[in-house]
């Protein structure tokens, strides 16, 4: 009796220890590589205000941080560069404070500077993305200052379409990327002298504008149909944007080749629905008809008409 209880307790304790070790090692893995090192930078650069010891006045001073240099550590550690130290991309001289003013003039890396030609990142097609981007209005109508970073903040960028994200999450994330400038006058005028037009008024031809913006990405209509990239980067001039409703609202909807190509193949099982992949998260008028229901409705309607025709014939014959 005693031995059995002792054995059970020993087994339970052992299992708990093994489980704890597993959880601990998993947690340890999740801590970003340069977490401790970056704390020093985030101490000021995650705050709106920072304090420092002024060696000249010999006083502790409180200053407002330039909002363009405030970063959210939580977003940074969710991002694709989470295991980087700040000084992997920025000059090591930034570690001392006050920062040397000339450091601000240092050139910034573009995606291709690190990822170009690297077989490890081949599946992301950085070269093709750059080529595609160079055709877009972002490249042709702006100077070379319009870099990848204008849309993809390296301090928080997440490759949404390569992760386990829902279509709604992908749409929200990608559209927020566009809205950061196209729905924000301050950011818009960082690169343009013209006034930012209101998104609502330039899209007023769309019925239920808000639902469209929540369900599909801006790039569904604003990129080239010929774009074969995983995420389209050739942003077209506004005159060339898609305006024909049936390109999406039809059985051969273009959305299957763009937004819904990220769906797992498993969810594409039809159960009679045309474009069933879309049905997992949305309903698209004209694109989600059910073949069986269609057939049934044609049969019922046909039988009704046949019945009426038969009745008419009998009425004529028996007149």
């Amino acid at each position, binding site marked *: 009796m005693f031995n059995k209880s002792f054995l059970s307790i020993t087994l339970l304790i052992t299992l708990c220890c093994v489980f704890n070790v597993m959880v601990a090692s998993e947690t340890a893995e999740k801590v970003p590589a340069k977490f401790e090192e970056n704390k020093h930078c985030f101490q000021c650069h995650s705050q709106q205000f920072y304090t420092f010891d002024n060696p000249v006045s010999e006083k502790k001073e409180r200053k407002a941080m330039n909002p363009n240099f405030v970063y959210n550590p939580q977003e940074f550690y969710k991002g694709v560069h989470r295991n980087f130290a700040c000084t992997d991309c920025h000059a090591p001289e930034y570690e001392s404070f006050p920062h040397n003013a000339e450091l601000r003039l240092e050139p910034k890396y573009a995606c291709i500077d690190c990822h170009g030609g690297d077989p490890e990142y081949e599946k992301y097609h950085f070269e093709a993305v750059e080529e595609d981007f160079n055709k877009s209005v972002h490249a042709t109508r702006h100077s070379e200052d319009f870099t990848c970073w204008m849309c993809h903040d390296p301090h928080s960028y997440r490759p949404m379409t390569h992760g386990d994200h829902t279509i709604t999450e992908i749409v929200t994330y990608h559209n927020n990327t566009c809205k950061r400038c196209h729905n924000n006058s301050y950011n818009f005028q960082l690169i343009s002298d013209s006034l930012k037009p209101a998104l609502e008024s330039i899209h007023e*031809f769309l*019925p*239920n504008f*808000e*639902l469209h913006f929540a369900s599909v990405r801006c790039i569904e209509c604003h990129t080239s149909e010929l774009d074969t990239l995983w995420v389209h980067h050739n942003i077209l001039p506004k005159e060339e944007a898609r305006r*024909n*409703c*049936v*390109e999406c*609202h*039809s*059985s*051969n909807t273009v959305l299957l080749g763009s937004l819904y190509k990220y769906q797992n193949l498993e969810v594409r099982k039809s159960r009679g629905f045309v474009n069933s992949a879309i*049905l*997992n*998260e*949305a*309903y698209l*008028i*004209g694109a*989600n*008809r*059910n073949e069986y*229901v269609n057939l049934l*409705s044609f049969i*019922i*309607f046909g039988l*009704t*008409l046949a019945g*009426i025709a038969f*009745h008419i014939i*009998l*009425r004529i014959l*028996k007149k």
Partner: protein
Amino acid sequence: MSEKLYLYPIWLRVWHAINALVILILIATGISLQYSDANFELLKFDISVTFHNIAGYIMAINYLFFVIANFKTGNVRFYRIKLKGLIKKLIKQANYYAFGMFKGEKTPYPITKDRKFNPLQKVTYVFFMFVIVPFLIVSGLALLFPEFIIPRVAGFSGIQLTAMLHAATGFLISLFLVIHIYISTTGKPISANFKSIVNGYHE
């Protein structure tokens, strides 16, 4: 010459005319939306959406008018169904349409000032006017304001379910329309019932 009965007051005829027009618009635009295709467009998609929405609002307001006017004028009494012997009456009327009228029999439930509809008409009208049409209107309004639709219902998208039920009830209404128009031709002469709904008199 049979007795003239004033059965369809002006408010009812106006409601019927508006309803007929918007139903036709809704069916045409609804089919166009449901079967929209880049290679073949029955009607332009954006025009269909606009017309479907406007016609839907008119139908909803018109239906509200129909319900209020029915209760206000007492016309609702023609829709009261007596359950006792209903099945027998329905079979009798169906038999008339299927066989009796070809043998020259008289209609078993002729129109009088107290009986505007035969039992089969009455059950059909009650089912459509007080079950199907309200459902169609509510589901249509829900699709106009999808933010009020429950996002997930039993693992399905709420919008998808609402849209499917809306299309299914729309389909039933289109079946009703075809049968309703055909049955209207069974008057004597064929045009009698069409004249009645225009001038209000049943002869």
